[in-house]
């Protein structure tokens, strides 16, 4: 069979975008190669590492295990879309302040998973809830405790507001 195409239209970091994609392309391929947003990373490419995490309609998903066509009509936010007026969001600042990374390859996925977890929680989360909520995101440098600190601090500050 010949390659098939799909007229894709969706919201990417708040802007309506469209592209003619190969039906075989994953959302991750399209975000990185068509739209040049390289924050989401290709790690395992099989939903086991979380480096490709993006927000799809407000929930973190593995963009490597989603067809680009499946995003049609939806809203995608990548790590590039979290900043506010060019300034890092408070969650991103917390990652910097907590020194929550070493090599940084998994960081965008970690931040997206944390954003999804915090945005969908109605209260301050305890450490175990954060560990479980972030358990799809692997950090091979082992910065887990500092990542936990960054997310827990952000959760505490949001609750305090």
């Amino acid at each position, binding site marked *: *069979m*010949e*390659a*098939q195409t*799909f007229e894709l239209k969706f919201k990417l970091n708040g802007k309506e975008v469209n592209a003619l994609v*190969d*039906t*075989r*392309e*994953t959302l991750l*391929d399209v975000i990185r190669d068509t739209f040049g947003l390289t924050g989401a990373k290709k790690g395992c*490419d*099989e*939903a*086991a590492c*979380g480096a490709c*995490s993006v927000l*799809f309609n407000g*929930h*973190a*998903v*593995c963009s490597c*295990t*989603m*067809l680009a*066509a*499946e995003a*049609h*009509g939806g809203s995608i936010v990548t790590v590039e879309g979290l900043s506010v007026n060019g300034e890092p969001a408070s969650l991103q600042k917390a990652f910097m302040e907590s020194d929550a990374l070493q090599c940084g390859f998994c960081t965008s996925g970690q931040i997206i*998973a944390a954003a*999804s*977890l915090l945005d969908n929680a109605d209260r301050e989360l305890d450490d175990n809830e954060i560990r*479980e*909520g*972030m*358990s*799809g*995101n692997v950090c091979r440098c082992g910065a887990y405790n500092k990542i936990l600190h960054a997310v827990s601090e952000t959760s505490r500050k949001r609750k305090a507001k």
Partner: protein
Amino acid sequence: MILEPFQYFSPLSLDEAFEILTEHHGEAKIIAGGQSLIPLMKMGVEMPCIVDIKKIHELKTIELSNDGSGKVSSVRVGALATYNEIERSVPVRRNIPLLAKTASGIGHPLVRNRGTIGGSLSHCDPAADLCATALALDAQICITGPGMKTRVLSARDFFKGPLETDLHNDEILTSVFFPVSNMKMGYDVQKLTLGHGDFPVFIVSVSLHYDGVKFTNAAIALGGVGETAVRASECESLMRGKESITGEDIREVSRLITDRYDPPVSAELSPDYTREMLSVYTGKALRNAVQMVTG
């Protein structure tokens, strides 16, 4: 990039979906959350026509369903309900807590935000979390075909073999009914995985009903020990009707299960270890379930 080219359809209604399924008879594959299907496609399994049913909104509902007299008789979970939605659903948590608990333990949150109950049951991996729990809870699978012809069958009759179900090429699994009990419930689900969030090596799902005097129902479902998830019926009958289930009863059931069922052979785990763990996890699930009932 996924290896083999395919056509992609995204119907907005069931009728439209059946038209596509009929037109591409035998070649069309339904995609729901894609958390099993996309990995298969990446392995190069040919799927010339993909029908994405996620735009059919009526398949997303989770609701209480009444019998004729207006009494709540079951919870109807739409095929497209994600594990995350099931885990958070109030009707599910309140009435079918074993289903909520099972959903909350599938994979990791990134998978739970995407994977669906309909996808998991129709993929029919013998060790899938929801296949075992659907059996333990006597779930009824609702299937719709062209002309909106609907049939309902038990999970037991629906699962046919590894990655094989009773679903025909032109049919869609539309919802799953979980019967609601007014008895006191004890339940648990335990599984062996290689690492946190990995697919189960095996899984044990237990559901007990207690009427205040005796255990009126005892269901033990096992995943990963055969061609499909199975009910350990011969062990259940040892507990059903009893006024109490003792530690000795649980040890006997665990022993019987390791005698009768073969946990899978894997490169990472020795058969002796896996067998021992099947006994340990069965015992743990039963103890937790019994304790919920008797305190």
